[in-house]
């Protein structure tokens, strides 16, 4: 039985449907990230679960019980927000304790639990401080402690790391999963940062325009996005998207990019003649000095370092911009001028242009010779998670 279950939840505002026929279940001890751009309906979803907002149709079930009509206090839901929302006139200790006073617990029962959660979050030394004396990181941990102290069945976190600095955000990203798992709550974690979603979550719920468009393990969302607009939200630099029309060619299909014909291998025959979008991750592209079969001539325009890589901006001869990333300047240290781009047919993504849905290679067909089937590679990667 799932700790949290949503059945066909819908909520509209004057501007339209904020949450549209959404179903979802989260187990105890599971961390599910709710990811999407602003306006996708993420926060409304949390408010419906918490009981702050009522859905016009559908059910919210907690621990197997329908709580749709229950008031927020009795649902056993803890919440923390990006703006911390601490009571300014109360010490950190009292702020955390409010998470229990609402449940009717007496002071003797409260102290050991506040102390325990403060210790776990490493804020014991600031429990006597007022919120204005706390750093953003300490405020964020205090807000989290308040949400966790009553051992809620459901923990809702609304972009809690948004307002802490990059360094602390990174540290918290490393530490949060084990802290949250220890709480035993079913956790819904709202974020707009795909890396945070991938790092923290067991599963990611991708929301676009009020609808859930994909629910999967992080690596599956990244490697096998259900739609082109999901592919665009995962990865930095962003995936390249080129309009193509696959054509049948011998054992497989080819596409033509800037007058160069490139083989995609077998398995996409059904897409022949259809308008498609070819998705190329910058990491999967290779920039070469000399022209050879199936390489696309490009003009390198600029190289912008990103983390330990170089992001190369280039233009095909018909003016399409493409980003590739490399660990070293690709061609003798040169990062501008003519070069040749090679794509790896086994790591391309193909989407149907009209619907935006990803096309899968048909099973049984061997992809490009010499390499394992992409699905097998992905299954192997998932096993190692």
């Amino acid at each position, binding site marked *: 039985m799932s700790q949290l279950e949503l059945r066909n939840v819908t909520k509209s505002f004057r501007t339209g449907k904020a949450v549209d026929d959404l179903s979802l279940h989260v187990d105890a001890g599971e961390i599910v990230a709710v990811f999407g751009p602003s306006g996708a309906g993420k926060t409304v979803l949390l408010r419906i679960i918490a009981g702050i907002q009522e859905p016009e149709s559908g059910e919210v079930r907690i621990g197997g019980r329908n709580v749709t009509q229950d008031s927020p206090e009795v649902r056993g839901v803890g919440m923390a927000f990006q703006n911390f929302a601490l009571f300014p006139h109360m010490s950190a200790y009292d702020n955390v304790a409010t998470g229990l006073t609402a449940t009717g617990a007496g002071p003797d029962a409260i102290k050991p639990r506040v102390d325990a959660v403060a210790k776990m979050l490493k804020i014991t030394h600031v429990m006597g401080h007022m919120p204005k004396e706390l750093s953003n990181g300490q405020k964020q941990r205090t807000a989290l402690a308040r949400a966790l102290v009553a051992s809620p069945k459901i923990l809702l976190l609304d972009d809690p790391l948004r307002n802490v600095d990059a360094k602390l955000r990174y540290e918290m990203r490393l530490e949060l999963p084990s802290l949250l798992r220890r709480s035993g709550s079913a956790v819904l974690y709202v974020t707009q940062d795909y890396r945070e979603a991938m790092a923290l979550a067991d599963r990611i719920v991708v929301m676009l325009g009020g609808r859930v468009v994909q629910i999967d393990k992080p690596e599956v969302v990244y490697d096998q996005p259900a739609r082109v607009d999901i592919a665009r939200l995962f990865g930095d630099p962003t995936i390249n998207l080129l309009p193509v029309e696959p054509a049948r060619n011998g054992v497989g299909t080819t596409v033509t990019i800037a007058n160069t014909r490139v083989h995609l291998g077998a398995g996409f025959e059904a897409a022949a003649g259809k308008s498609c979008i070819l998705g190329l991750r910058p990491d999967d592209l290779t920039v070469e000095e000399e022209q050879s079969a199936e390489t696309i001539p490009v003009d390198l325009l600029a190289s912008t370092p990103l983390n330990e890589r170089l992001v190369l901006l280039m233009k095909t001869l018909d003016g399409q911009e493409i*980003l590739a990333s490399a660990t070293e300047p690709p061609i003798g240290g040169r990062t501008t001028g003519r070069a040749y781009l090679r794509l790896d047919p086994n790591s391309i993504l193909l989407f149907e242009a009209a619907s935006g849905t990803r096309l899968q290679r048909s099973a049984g067909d061997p992809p490009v010779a010499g390499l394992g089937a992409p699905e097998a590679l992905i299954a192997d990667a998932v096993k190692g998670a």
Partner: protein
Amino acid sequence: MAATLALRDLNKLYHRRGKTPVHAVKSLNMDVGHGEIVALLGSSGCGKTSTLRMIAGFEEASSGTISLAGRSINNLPPSGRNVAMAFEGYSLYPPLTVRENIAFALKSTRVSRTEAAKRVADIAALVEIEPILDRYPLSISGGQQQRASLARALVRKADLYLLDEPMGQLEPQLRSVLRGRIKNLLNENKMTAIFVTHDQTEANALADRIAVMEGGVLQQFASEKDLKARPANLFVATFIGEPPMNVFESHVTPRGGVTVLDIDGGPSLDFGGAGVPAPWRSVLGSRSKVVVGVRPHKVAMGTGPFSAKVVSNQWLGDQSHVAAEVAGKLLVGVSATRIRTMPGEAVAYDFAPQDLQLFDADTGVALAHGLEPA
């Protein structure tokens, strides 16, 4: 390369009634070459914005000189400096459309009407604001305003371009392409640019050289590569790099005829029994303490003589981030291949001496970058 912009002994003090003055910029010396792109990088209050505003002419320097293209500009008003700007406090004119705002920057130049229209269209396409060219500034989003004012600055010829957080509000999907286009524009036209940012990703992407500032003091002025490989001090070392450098306080200990580094509360680095490499002996001298640093990308995770308990292992689609408990803190290792280990397990790791940085334990000044003395 002749310096286009030269800052000499530049100081800025803000005097506040009844309080001690704030020394926001301290004896800053900097040369920026023709066509160079420079980032002023630091956290809030580091002095980067005061520096930019002094160069622009919005703040008066308390002392020191600023020269641009061979002339001293200290006493010139902002409009007389031939500097193009995109920043807060220099906003778009509300009564003019975005197109008119951008074209206005070309008014004082002798550019034909058709040429002006073409330039506006080109720069608008570059920053992707074509659909809003005929809108008014107050009716567009903050991010669009930012791009419009960037376009207004870049559309005209100037001796220097000053940009304040030029891409702070951009949607992530646009960032990489826009960074590339702007860098290409600046490079192709040999435009000299200084931009302020608190975001090192932005600084790394665009700048030829980065001026790292802290407490009003220029800590280091070097390329992104040099800042990472040869940080001048512990501040720069731990500020630059995502995720930041792992640092451990260590004791320098003679043992078994060689010198080893004992990480406080952690493992002892004896480098396969050979002790510290020869080039370090002179820089270590008679020190008993030193800070050892290693970048996450240089930690060998999954192999090596040391072992630590894994706290987390996160795969981000293209990188593994593994954190393990070493010396009471987290040792972070980043790898482009997937590392297979679970929280709670032990993971082997290693540091190669050529990847370590040594710093003085008291002053934080760099002692060695890999095997090379600092």
